[in-house]
């Protein structure tokens, strides 16, 4: 921390990627945490109004939860393999993690389609609007992560020395996305207007 790190002049940590990447990612995770925290507060405040009608969460969300958990685990293992230098397995697990994440996005879209067929449309009720907004923004963050993962995969194929560090960053981002999804899913599944009123009642009244 204290001034001796000179990243662009070649001082790099053992994992191959210099520390700025890690710090930059942590700062970015703080920004995304802020984004979803504010959305959840808006959710809790809005659901206290009389017109809120909770929508039935489609079963596909459980499937996509499992897929994202698998994706996060695969990248965890990939990072472990980086530390042991098993590059063939790293590539396999990065690929598996990416596939599971893509399947997660597909699962979310399937859930959207299911809801739309049951006429739970985005403007029908604020509960619907928030559901689409929260899952949509989270899905966009997964898609952005997939771009990063694809770039990492390209570096792995080229045998770039820094690729190991990128795998670590991707894994951390994936665990974060999984944690965010668990929070979103839990809040959407369990919090009732009465509970919301006891958490943050009064601010809008």
């Amino acid at each position: 921390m204290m001034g001796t790190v000179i990243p662009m002049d070649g001082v790099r940590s053992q994992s191959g990627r210099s520390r700025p990447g890690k710090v930059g990612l942590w700062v970015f995770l703080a920004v995304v945490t802020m984004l979803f925290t504010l959305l959840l507060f808006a959710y809790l405040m809005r659901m206290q109004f009389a017109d809120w009608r909770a929508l039935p969460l489609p079963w596909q969300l459980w499937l996509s939860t499992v897929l994202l958990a698998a994706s996060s685990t695969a990248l965890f293992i990939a990072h472990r393999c980086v530390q042991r230098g098993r590059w063939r397995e790293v590539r396999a697990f990065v690929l598996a993690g990416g596939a599971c994440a893509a399947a997660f996005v597909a699962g979310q879209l399937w859930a959207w389609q299911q809801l739309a067929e049951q006429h739970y449309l985005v403007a029908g009720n604020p509960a619907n609007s928030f559901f689409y907004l929260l899952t949509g923004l989270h899905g966009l963050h997964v898609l952005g992560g997939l771009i990063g993962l694809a770039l990492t995969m390209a570096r792995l194929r080229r045998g770039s020395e820094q690729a190991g560090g990128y795998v670590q960053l991707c894994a951390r981002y994936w665990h974060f996305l999984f944690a965010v999804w668990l929070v979103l899913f839990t809040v959407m599944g369990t919090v009732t207007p009465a509970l919301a009123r006891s958490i943050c009642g009064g601010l809008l009244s």
Partner: protein
Amino acid sequence: MAYSHGDGHHPPQSFWTRYVWSQDHKVISIQYTITAIVIGLVGLVLSNLMRLQLGFPGLVPFIDPAHYYQFVTMHGMIMVIYLLTALFLGGFGNYLIPLMVGARDMVFPFLNMLSYWVYLLAVLVLVASFFTPGGPTGAGWTLYPPQAILPGTPGDGAGIILMLVSLLIFIVAATMGGLNYVTTVLQARTEGMTLMRLPLTVWGIFMATILALLAFPALFVSGVMMLLDKTLGTSFFMPALMSLGQALGYKGGSPLLFQHLFWFFGHPEVYIVALPAFGIVSDLISTHARKNIFGYRLMVWAIVAIGVLSVVVWAHHMFVSGMNPYFGFFFATTTLIIAIPTAIKVYNWVLTLWRGNIHLTVPMLFAIGFISMFAIGGLTGLFLGNVSVDIPLSNTYFVVAHFHMVMGVAPILVVFGGIYHWFPKVTGRMLNDTLGQLHFWITFIGTYLIYFPMHYLGFLGMPRRYYAYENYQFIPPSAQVLNEFITVVALIVGVAQFLFVFNLAWSVFKGRAASSNPWGGTTLEWQTPDTPPVHGNWGETLPVVYRWAYEYSVPGEARDFVPQNLAPEGEGEGE
């Protein structure tokens, strides 16, 4: 000045990679600055058009009520977001952070380049809204729903949509830049540059960037939700209502929810603009008074304290929206507490000046002008922080005068001071001093002449946001005389800004050649081997820092300043 390191970085070869698709923080800074100044001039012209209507109603035939509200909205939005935020973080931050911490560039140069181009896109989308049918939005810069997206508000079609899209794009750009600034300060400081040796400029920009990163998501969330209300008919913010005799599809939404989200961004935004100004002004005052900054540690902690407090005061913008009295008490208290670290800073600036060897250079004039403007504009903030005083004054010109002095003109004075101060490093030439003095005095005196009478008009009860003031019994006819006076001064000040623009353009080519350190500064940016600094900034080796940034007039030293990278006697091999 070739240097080598393992990253594959090399000086750009062609015109396009050097000046257009540049990843060099100095070029990106200049791109940011020029774009911000150009769009800022648009904001300036809009303000003068508004003043023409207020001073001489009907004189300019095309300013009808719709246009007036569009000018108000775009003036506010442009000045706060696209000029001040972009210029302090993207302009000053980009240029000064790597140079002041002794780095070769930002840690993510590609992201940095992307940040500028995305910012430019945001500006272009904003400008495009002027040319859509119905024109730009006239919802007021706070874009409060429901009126912001309803028929009857100017620019309720493409105008408001482009405004929201432009804001969302801007936030993406600011986040990309912000990640760079924070990580660079944390990770790329050269050897010996501890956090408590950072110049206060870097501290101010650093803390402002953290605030921006944490506050802009609130604007992003509210922008996305309003966009969905407008385009898909959701009811996040929109209550059930009748418009032009017809019931709209909205139901049950909460406009107050928008206000909370907006001001959760909106108040930190004040400090996103003010903290870099605090930092820069500290360095200007210390350098041009040839005296170390008084209470450096306290200055740093004041910056941090203001940053932390600024996220728990937002609802003081909503006293008139109505709230639980306990909340009102809480937000009034936190608002008044902010006066403590802010006053510490003002005292320390004044104590730095006290018995200093004051050089009344143009940057110093602007710095001192800032202290005066900020202290007086800030004092009226203490009035408005109290709920019982705020409620009668909130909708009057008193508030317009308050925030223009404290967060409009005061930071702009620092922008000017900073540009006069660092222009020699950026271009290798000095700005013209006579034009600079003229620019300062017209702007400084003019500002007081504009905003002092506005406080009085506010006390008279003259409401803000009105298009015309004829035939209101409670406004005495003498108010109109003051309005004419304010307008005349505003026009003069407006025209005077073109002196500055001319000075910039003329001095780049014809200005007096500057030495590498014309003001005798201690900080690293003045110690670069080349002026202007070339790609990579430092030649073969990075500078090593041995001391803090404020060794001015040290007894026993040959010169009246000691650069941060000058080794103490008998240690290292010197500069």
